[in-house]
């Protein structure tokens, strides 16, 4: 299995590649006034309006810096039985490498943060620890409905 690595603060995190649609360069986003915390804005991804979450803002409270290596990862977060794909963008820093891993390499972190259900298991590579992020759990269900409704309306507009 493949893990797409990004950095937030001093720590390294990973997103599982199986649900990733594409990694695109940092582009200008449409700012959404009164957007929920951690939402960077809306991205025009090949004609589809996609809400983009700032992982750096979510994980450290500091928005992602504008760098070449700061990129937007497009992930399919739709449930298994959903007919249409639900795409969510994740802005993150230092999105430049991947790691091949096996499920048994992962260890349970042992700390469950109530506010952050998306923090997953941890694995060790040659440099440091990498914590896997569950992209589907980044947004709470209630907010997800709002977000996608927003995106849908934007698409209609």
């Amino acid at each position, binding site marked *: 299995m493949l893990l797409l690595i990004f950095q937030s603060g001093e720590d390294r995190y990973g997103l599982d590649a*199986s649900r990733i649609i594409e990694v695109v360069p940092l582009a200008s986003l449409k700012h959404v006034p009164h957007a929920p915390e951690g939402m960077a804005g809306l991205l025009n991804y090949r004609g589809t309006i996609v809400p983009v979450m700032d992982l750096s803002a979510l994980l450290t409270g500091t928005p992602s810096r504008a760098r070449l*290596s700061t990129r937007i990862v497009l992930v399919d977060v739709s449930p298994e039985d959903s007919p249409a794909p639900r795409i969510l963008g994740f802005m993150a820093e230092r999105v430049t490498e991947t790691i091949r891993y096996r499920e048994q390499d992962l260890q349970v972190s042992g700390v469950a943060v109530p506010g952050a259900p998306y923090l997953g298991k941890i694995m060790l590579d040659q440099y440091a620890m990498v914590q896997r992020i569950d992209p589907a759990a980044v947004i709470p269900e209630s907010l997800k409905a709002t977000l996608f409704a927003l995106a849908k309306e934007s698409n209609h507009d």
Partner: protein
Amino acid sequence: MHSQQSITFQLSLLIISSVALIFALVFGYNYYISRQLVMQGVEREAQQIARATLKRIETVLYSVQKVVQGMSQTVQNMACPQQDLVRYLKAVVESNPEVYGSVIAFEPYTLASDVQYFCPYYCKQDGKLTYVDLGNASYNYLNWAWYTTPKSNNCAVWSDPYFDEGGGNIVLTTYSVPFYAMRDAGKRFQGVVTADLSLDWLKDLFASIRIYQTGYAFLISNKGTFIAHPDAALVMKETIFSVANKRKNLLLEQVGRRMVNGDTGFIPMKCLLTNKDCFLYYAPLAANGWSLGVLFPRAEFMADVNRLNQVVLILTAIGFFLLLAVIILVARSITRPLTRLTEAAEAVAEGRLGDASRLAQEMAGRAAGRKVRNEVLRLRQAITTMIHSLESVVSQMGKSGVLVTASRAQIDTSARQLESAVTQQAASINEAGATSKEISTTTQQLAQTMDQVTQSATETATLAGGGVTSLADMKTAVQSLMESTPQIAAKLGLISQKTSNINQVVVTIVKVANQTNLLSLNASIEADKAGEYGLGFSVVASEIRRLADQTAVAALDIENMVAEMRTAVSEGVAAVGNYTSQAQISSEKIVKLSDDLSRIIDQTQQLSARFETVNESMQTQSQGARQINEAMEQLGETARLTHDALSEFKKVTEQMSDAVCGLQSEVARFSVRA
């Protein structure tokens, strides 16, 4: 041949033939035993009829015998006159209804020495008692068989039946008994007494014997003459042998011999009247050796058995048809699901999974009402499970194929983007190389200019050091220096401009490297989605990413070098500025202070030293440009490697495409239900 028949046919044939064999054996045994029982019954019946008939005949014969024997005793012991004998004879005939007529005949001269013939005869002619004296020469009783036979044999005899001599068609038989005169302690033949017995009553007796419809009894004498027979034409006219002779019937002749010999038997033969198959029972009459035959028509006494057998056969046939119908029904109910399953399996074999699944579902629907748990059900369940598994495998394969094809298209796009990026990078590298060459040339020109300046300065120093002479010359020299200053500044400005050009190129390289890194990331992700097929491509993608990182590192090096070069140029500019102002000051001082020549010489020497610094800076620049050139070559090498990796990557993609095409064509054989 048999193997091509259906299970129904084979099953029916097997069971029907087995049952038919059993039926045939049972029927045959039953027929044999019943026939034997009937035969035994018939024989017993024949014996009873024969015995009863014989007994009735013998009763009559014995009664006649008693009468005659009584007469012989009477006549033998009683020597009485002729009239008394005649009277006695008349009384006997009158009192015995069985006796038709009677005779007392004496040997000549035994009754009385003067009586030659004595033979009185009484008979019931036409129911009227009639006396006939047969004792005359014309009749001559002494030569008749009824007289000579008992005389010669010394015993009582029954004569053969014959027609009455005295007229009338009455068949008679005569019992003759000899009587003797007891004299001189011996006995001497004295005469014969006889009694005639009419056989008319035999007609009635035999007519009353009824055996089934056409069976009958007959009586023959010990010479074979028919005495009683339903066919009146035979009676007293034919013998059994003459009939056998006429009809060329050997069996009849043999039977006749046995009957005449007094044997008893029960044998099959042909009826004399109807020529049908019969069984004949024959037994002798003990009194006179006649033989009685009783004929049983076979067809009639076997009629019951045959009817029973017919009914049994009809019932058997009905049973067979019922059994056949039941077998066919049962066999059909077994084979029908099998046939349907076979159709389903054939549909699977031909790849029509949808049809197969529909057939299996129809069967399941049909079987839902019945609660059966047998091999057919298990087979159907197994086939249904197999079809579902196949369907899910096929649809899964189809989906995977589509997914892989989509991934392949995306990979192709990525590869094309990567290729154009690499081409762009190569162009940028070439541009950077050309720019660095220009820098090198400019620096060399600068160095030459600096050499000239140094030379001028040295000349100035020499002029000053030599105590030479005119300040005007010095001023001119200073002015020429002043003129050189803007040139130097212009050259330095050019260098600064080129440096910023390099910076732009470096930025382009960095952008390209970044783009390459991004593309390789997406390629890795797509390769991971492709699973096993993407492994080779995944390696290529990570290799490309490594090359992009190396490019970024090389670009960083260039950036650092350019920064160093800029520092050097700024220093040069500062030095030139400084030198210009000092030259101005010097010029002013030359104008003002012609005597301060020594100081000017010192300052000139200082200038010379500063030119050295500039020169060193220039050399550093030149070296920097060379290093940039080397870095560019390294970049060119990297681009080539990238290109090689790309063509390898293309090959892998084609292999993957071929594999997917093969897989899809294999799967396309199966049509999945929509």
